[in-house]
């Protein structure tokens, strides 16, 4: 699936909930399917800054596509990372760099996220794009 298709799929899923609780439960649920980062990669240099909880992110290049693994010590944050990984993982650098990620607003989450959290989310996306840029330079 293309990035945009996955985004639309997520927008569809969230449109089923008109209450915040459902949305958050869905986020938490998504966290359970996050491809977990290997323990040995849970190092300080893989920590994403700006989150009140810890988020580790690791990326690998396979057949020209980038795959992310991650983890967080907070459940909601883990769900959010999982959602980002679901959208961006398995795509090429160019596709990842071009992704607008405006679905976050469309699913009505941005307003629900506290400023520190929103920054965390922004930083997650930024780090994923930075990783992609680094691979692009190598290719």
């Amino acid at each position, binding site marked *: 699936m293309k990035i945009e298709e996955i985004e639309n799929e997520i927008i569809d899923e969230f449109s089923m909930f008109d209450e915040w609780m459902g949305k*958050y439960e869905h986020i938490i649920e998504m966290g359970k399917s996050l491809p977990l980062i290997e323990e040995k990669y849970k190092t300080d240099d893989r920590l994403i800054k700006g989150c009140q909880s810890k988020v580790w992110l690791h990326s690998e290049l396979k057949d020209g596509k980038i795959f992310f693994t991650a983890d967080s010590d907070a*459940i909601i944050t883990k769900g959010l990372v999982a959602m980002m990984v679901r959208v961006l993982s398995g795509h090429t650098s160019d596709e990842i760099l071009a992704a607008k990620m405006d679905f976050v607003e469309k699913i009505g989450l941005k307003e*629900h996220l*506290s400023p520190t*959290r929103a920054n965390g989310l922004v930083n997650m996306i930024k780090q994923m794009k930075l990783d992609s840029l680094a691979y692009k330079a190598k290719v």
Partner: protein
Amino acid sequence: MTSTKVISEEKIAFDINNIRNDFPILSRKVNGKPLIYLDSGATAQKPKQVIDAIEKYYSEQNANIHRAVHRLSQDITTIYENARTTVQKHINAKHVHEIIFTHGTTESINLVATTFGKKFVNAGDEILITEMEHHSNILPWQQLCEEKNAVLKVVPINSEGELIMDEFKKLLSAKTKIVAITHTSNTLGTINPIKEIISLAHANNIPVLVDGAQSIPHTKVNVQELDADFYCFSGHKVFGPTGVGVLYGKEEWLRKLPNYQVGGGTIKTVSFAKTEYADIPLRFEAGTPNIEGGIGLAVALDYINNIGFENISAYEHELLEYATEKLSVVEGLKIIGTSKNKASVISFVIDKIHPYDIGVILDQLGIAVRTGHHCTQPIMDKFGIPGTVRASLAFYNTKDEIDELVKGITKAKQMLR
């Protein structure tokens, strides 16, 4: 003078509904739910008396102080200096010139660390703080020690979150130049035995700076009775405006301290060859101050004195006991900071749940708590936790709100498991 007259003789009975009506923000909604504000330790809400005073300042009184002969300037100078007197009386300082207006607790501490450090701290000297200090009462001293090759000594706390007094006594030494300690911990709620600490330090001729940021909103402080050498607090935590704070210093100490920031307002006469500086307190107040802040702070102090600290203390104590009891029975919840002598601040962690997750869910329910390390990372290290959820209560909170908090936590636990 804008401030309302304090009617200390005939204390107004404590009526929570009347009090809540004084705080406009308490009737707003957050995420569609009535706001439950349990973060007064970070900053307190403001009564309409304070808001009105600020509005009045800008719409009727605005002029610079100490600068002009015109009527507005004279009037506002009088009002501003009366505010200083209100602060003096509130903390029972001996002289009004012992009250210096700053931007807040952090600046007050920096002022003393910088000026006292410049003159009195040398290589090998020691500065004594505690493990429960806010970063604002750690970093200025840490930086000073680095600059001067002095040594920062830290009094440890026990598992209840109380100072270990025997360690304090051991750490006081001939090399100690100053003790800097919080009156009440913003994270643990612990109220330190400040009077005893000061008298122990004074027995060794060591001055004491007290960080009063979290005690001034909850209790009547008498700096002469405590015999504090320096006492610092912030306006915004005591129901006043942000950006204004107080440094109280004993006259003899303030006179000994060198200048801090200099510029307009701090002088008698200036020439390129020689400047003659003003007397205290103005020598420490460079530039145009936060005028509406000082005025608003005085109105806030009048406001709480009007309610009366006997009433405030009794009510907050009741809230604290109620909240402690209700939270203690939540399965998996552990209160961090269990001293018998506590202000109405409750920090807690819940088994296997990140404090942050709890904060997000509570926010959805309109409940404002703080999560994280609360600018006291050493305490988190001590207890081996990433952070806590902190509910800090003020006299405008209610038992119903505590019940909602407990319900919210229960809901969060269900969702997060």
